[in-house]
């Protein structure tokens, strides 16, 4: 799939568009030097992005594989490399390598099922790839529910896409449930944390749940889902730990005997429960 996977040598990626999505999240469109999509991936897979001299880190590819023109990263400003990434402009070259890790089983376990996708903050990034892949292959899946929350309306990532595409009247059986942490002006939607909102909404349990967000959200949402009758075999999540190599050799992203970069980042909750609590 990728010529460079056996090495640690990246390829050049050109940032063609940078969009300020929320006050601390930017969206980056990346192509290869040839103007084509630099990496072929499946939803949930990640890539190493680097500014040489600054650093290299793993980011989930937020675009859907069905996008044939470019890949996208949705990156929150929170550390050294991400601060630099937030300063770059269109036309800047970066390096990319990947794809790394497994993917959400969109063509296997998810196929033919109703999906409940739950995300918090920038945690929407990896599952947006799933959402747009499933929307593209709409007839392969049942009802799609999306519960997404952030601190405020301004902090909702992909807000325009959610309103104009996912919540469009033309959309077939896709239901978006947005929530923000605190009351604010210009917001007449739900207010409250994601885990409670999920319980309030009270979903049927004959579906697959996909979780991504801050660890605290995952913890309480997972408990909530179990409370309303979901089994761990029905719940998927994706993890993020510090990575250097991306291929299970540098030794730092393991949870027990599993490497998140290679055996993950996507785990079914029953698999994750067998691992020690060190993530």
């Amino acid at each position, binding site marked *: 799939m990728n010529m460079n996977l056996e090495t640690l040598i990246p390829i050049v990626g050109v940032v063609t568009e940078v969009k300020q999505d929320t006050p601390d999240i930017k969206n980056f469109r990346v192509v290869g030097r040839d103007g084509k999509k630099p990496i072929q991936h499946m939803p949930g897979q990640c890539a190493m992005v680097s500014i040489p001299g600054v650093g290299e880190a793993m980011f989930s590819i937020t675009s859907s594989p069905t996008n044939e023109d470019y890949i996208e990263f949705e990156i929150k400003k929170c550390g050294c490399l991400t601060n630099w990434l937030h300063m770059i402009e269109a036309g800047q070259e970066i390096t990319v390598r990947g794809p790394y890790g497994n993917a959400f089983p969109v063509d296997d376990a998810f196929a033919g099922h109703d999906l409940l996708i739950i995300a918090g903050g920038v945690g929407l990034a990896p599952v947006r790839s799933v959402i747009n892949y499933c929307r593209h292959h709409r007839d392969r899946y049942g009802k799609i529910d999306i519960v997404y929350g952030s601190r405020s309306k301004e902090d909702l990532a992909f807000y325009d896409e959610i309103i104009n595409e996912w919540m469009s009247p033309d959309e077939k059986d896709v239901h978006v449930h947005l929530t923000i942490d605190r009351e604010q002006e210009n917001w007449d939607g739900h207010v409250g944390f994601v885990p409670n909102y999920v319980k309030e909404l009270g979903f049927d349990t004959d579906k697959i749940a996909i979780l991504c967000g801050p660890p605290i959200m995952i913890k309480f949402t997972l408990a909530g889902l179990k409370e309303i009758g979901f089994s761990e075999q029905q719940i998927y999540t994706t993890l993020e730990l*510090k990575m250097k190599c991306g291929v299970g050799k540098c030794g730092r992203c393991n949870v027990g005997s599993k490497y998140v970069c290679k055996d993950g980042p996507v785990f079914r909750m029953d698999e994750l429960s067998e691992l020690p609590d060190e993530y």
Partner: protein
Amino acid sequence: MYRIPREKLDQLFALTAEKETLYIPTDATSGIAQFKKWNEGMKMSEKLKTSRSAKDFFFPQTEALVNFKISGKKIDIIDPREECEDFVIFGVRACDAKSFEILDSVFLVDPVDTYYKNRREHGTIVTLACSRPSESCFCTTFDIDPTEPAGDVSAWMTDDSVYFKANTEKGEKYIALVSSLLEETDGADVDAQKVATKEILGKLPFANLKKDAFGGGKTEQYFGSPKWAELSEACLGCGTCTFVCPTCQCYDIRDFDTGHGINRFRCWDSCMYSDFTKMAHGNPRLSQKERFRQRFMHKLVYYPENHDEVFACVGCGRCVEKCPISMNIVKVMKTLGEEEAK
């Protein structure tokens, strides 16, 4: 089996070095034994083992990964890899020879680490059987026979001779290279040495150390043990154990600005360090207890689980000798193993 008189060893080194780069363990002026490139007059160390392990040959402490030239918004990527030259490492002990297999099953599995593979393919390993194992040795715990070391060629040194046996095609090639100095012989002296060495092995302080309480599938049993706090409480987090360990293979990738471009290199890293797993949003291993636990769980449980019950320790004893607070895998195994026995 082949034989050469000991006094001809210098000739053997010279003949080897004519064709390939040769490394032997030699005593530095500081008194430590270290693998060095052979040159005329260099003597092989009489010490049991080198201070550093032999992993440097295939997984050096630092190495260039990729270079970048930056001009404006443009980045050019320069691949610094070159085909490695053939080399011979003479006098590798059984423990270090086994460590190469352990590193292989990390670096040579898909996706293959081409930097490691390049060196590995060009290196011929001549091992040397141990006849005077030391008090810190416990290779037999991990089913290693120091009287029958692996490698491309196995060698045994007695008072008057050195004996050789080729184990691989590479080894056959090496024997052919130096055949003018060798004579064919039976292995009677070697057999006698093996018997004598095994007698010593049976009397070593760690001779009864068993690995049976550990292995794949034991995560739940040991991860939550209250003993980790006590075992790790004096750990300095210096990382010495990981650097002298022949099987520790964790690495970091970093960039260096040369002023003319960016050199990306990889270097050894240590799970004992606080920033090893530190991310912008936090650290899953907050205290030394978690880092310490990771190192030993990896060697005794996680690695065996992923690699057919082979442990990521070869009992070379370097960590036993070098740890400034005298904590080591033997103490960990004994302490946790006792728990198992209860």
